[in-house]
């Protein structure tokens, strides 16, 4: 112990990382915290405001509070709707995919294609696709007599945004489920056949339990992405009609940049951040619990 040489060379390797993290995360984050606790009359003239921004934000009787509560509810509703479609649909498609042969590669590539398209391109595609005058989708629905109008009817707007997200991201659920299904040894299916199990019994008693883990990951990823949805509604509906598709992220940008209400926006982004962090933590806990139960 006594003659252990002092060697601080490790710091040389750690410090650049610390500096990077400092400027990439901690400083911007602290700036937001800073804004959320102060008020400004402009020209870099700040004064202490305590927790007033937060109290206003979380009190639904104030104007900003009502707006926040509405947007939050809308965002949760959107996540729920998207997940409710994407997860069952993804599993169903994964079950139908071929298990071996040349068709596997082709179908996986075709299925993965939507995921490779950037968000704003997806938005633009659908913005045109959904137009009632020249868009194939919109014109077709109008043609068969459905009251479809993205810019005026909030149901149409919602359906369109959910359909876009389903189109764009169900492939992720499909690929994860497919991987999970492929990992089930053949013996399970053989045993089920010998036990005389029906197709439904095989799904409920073998496939679904074995998919549990990948499904938790799929739900986690899809929840976070849908909860942060921004680009598609901005491009397709602009958050409208009215504020029907104004989700949290859109409202945040409106308040921060449109109204330059920095304090409220900062408080809002922190609350937003904490919600996502909490959701992640819950999912992570579920996942590790599942692991432990399996080992037990």
């Amino acid at each position: 112990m006594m003659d252990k040489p002092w060697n601080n060379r490790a710091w040389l390797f750690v410090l650049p990382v610390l500096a990077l993290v400092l400027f990439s995360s901690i400083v911007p984050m602290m700036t937001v915290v800073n804004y959320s606790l102060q008020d400004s009359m402009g020209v870099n003239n700040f004064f202490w405001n305590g927790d007033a921004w937060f109290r206003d934000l979380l009190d639904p009787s104030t104007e900003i509070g009502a707006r926040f509560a509405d947007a939050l509810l809308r965002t949760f509703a959107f996540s729920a709707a998207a997940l409710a479609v994407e997860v069952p649909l993804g599993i169903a498609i994964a079950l139908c995919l071929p298990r071996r042969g040349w068709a596997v590669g082709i179908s996986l590539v075709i299925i993965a294609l939507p995921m490779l398209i950037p968000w704003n391109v997806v938005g633009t595609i659908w913005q045109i696709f959904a137009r009632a005058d020249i868009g194939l989708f919109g014109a077709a629905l109008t043609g068969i007599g459905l009251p479809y109008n993205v810019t005026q009817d909030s149901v149409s707007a919602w359906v369109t945004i959910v359909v876009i997200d389903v189109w764009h991201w169900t492939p992720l659920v499909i690929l994860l489920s497919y991987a999970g299904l492929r990992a089930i040894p053949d013996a399970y299916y053989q045993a089920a056949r010998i036990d005389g199990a029906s197709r439904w019994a095989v799904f409920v008693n073998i496939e679904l339990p074995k998919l549990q883990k990948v499904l938790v990951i799929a739900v986690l990823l899809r929840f976070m992405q849908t909860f942060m949805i921004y680009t598609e509604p901005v491009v397709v509906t602009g958050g409208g009609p009215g504020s029907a598709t104004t989700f949290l992220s859109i409202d945040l940008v409106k308040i921060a940049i449109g109204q330059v209400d920095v304090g409220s926006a900062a408080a809002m982004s922190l609350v937003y951040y904490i919600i996502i962090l909490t959701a992640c933590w819950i999912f992570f806990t579920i996942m590790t619990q599942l692991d432990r139960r399996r080992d037990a």
Partner: protein
Amino acid sequence: MARITLDGIGHAYTSHPRSDADYALKPLHHVWEQGMAYALLGPSGCGKTTLLNIISGLIIPSAGRLLFDDRDVTRLPTEQRNIAQVFQFPVIYDTMTVAENLAFPLRNRKMPKAAIQARVAEVAAMLELTPDLHRRARGLTADAKQKVSLGRGLVRSDVSAVLFDEPLTVIDPALKWELRSKLKAVHRALDLLMIYVTHDQTEALTFADRVVVMNDGRAVQIGTPEELFERPEHTFVGYFIGSPGMNLLPARISGNRAYIGSNEISLGAAYPTLTETTNLQIGIRPDFVTLSSTGGAEVQVRRVDDFGRKRLAHVTLGGLPLVATVPLDMPSVGTAACVNFDASHVLVYQNDIRVEGVAA
């Protein structure tokens, strides 16, 4: 309850088998009798699991017919065959309790609830699973999970056959003995046709009434454990059964004498039917070759293995390796010793097939 007949059953995994080598299982005729316990014994890749899967219907054979009693089931799906099968690795339904796992094959066949309960209790008692019946199957050890798999295989009393595909691979050795004897007892109690695939000869010989020894897609011998030990019909059986296997030495045969180099060995019989003199071998179990200090052919001792109750010497006879028993009263083994063959246990093989002798 049935007799299962393999009528020229063969299987190739390629879709257009051209030569014999393409067949993972060469066409085979055999009748599995009701109430017997069979073992399919052979090294990995010899086609034993393929044969088992053909019987259970997981594989449709490329050639031949499969009969249950007189019914042709060759193309019938597994569900309609009334077969139970236990796999190498435990297959359990994660979400169910042990009792639900055991009841699953019966529930799928719409058996009345009370009958299911009684049967599950019976099987659980047989496999000593009763205390775990209401535990979730997922939390069990690998041993217990495999017992649940075995239980699911045994729970249906009306099956034509119960097939086991190396079911004790994951079980630790101490429990292996216990489970094997339990299976044997279950077999006696239930009077079912059981077919047990294994590459472990001890397992096969202790479990089965009849052992089918397979090599390279072919059933080389079907017989009782005693027959396999005493009179291997093929050199492969001699080599594969017994530990260590049979000594096989190239030899010349003349009358009731065999010649290895300049050493003469007397045989228990004469072989007048041998017309050609090529590819001849004599085979003898190490148990019937004894080392002594004087008398007999002179050998060089290379190594002696002490197994406690017996000692085996690895020696060379005219340059050929040979394993011999060292008598307990032979105190030490020098570099030179003599070897004696028990004439009545020397077998003669031509082109790996045993040749029947005529009493001289």
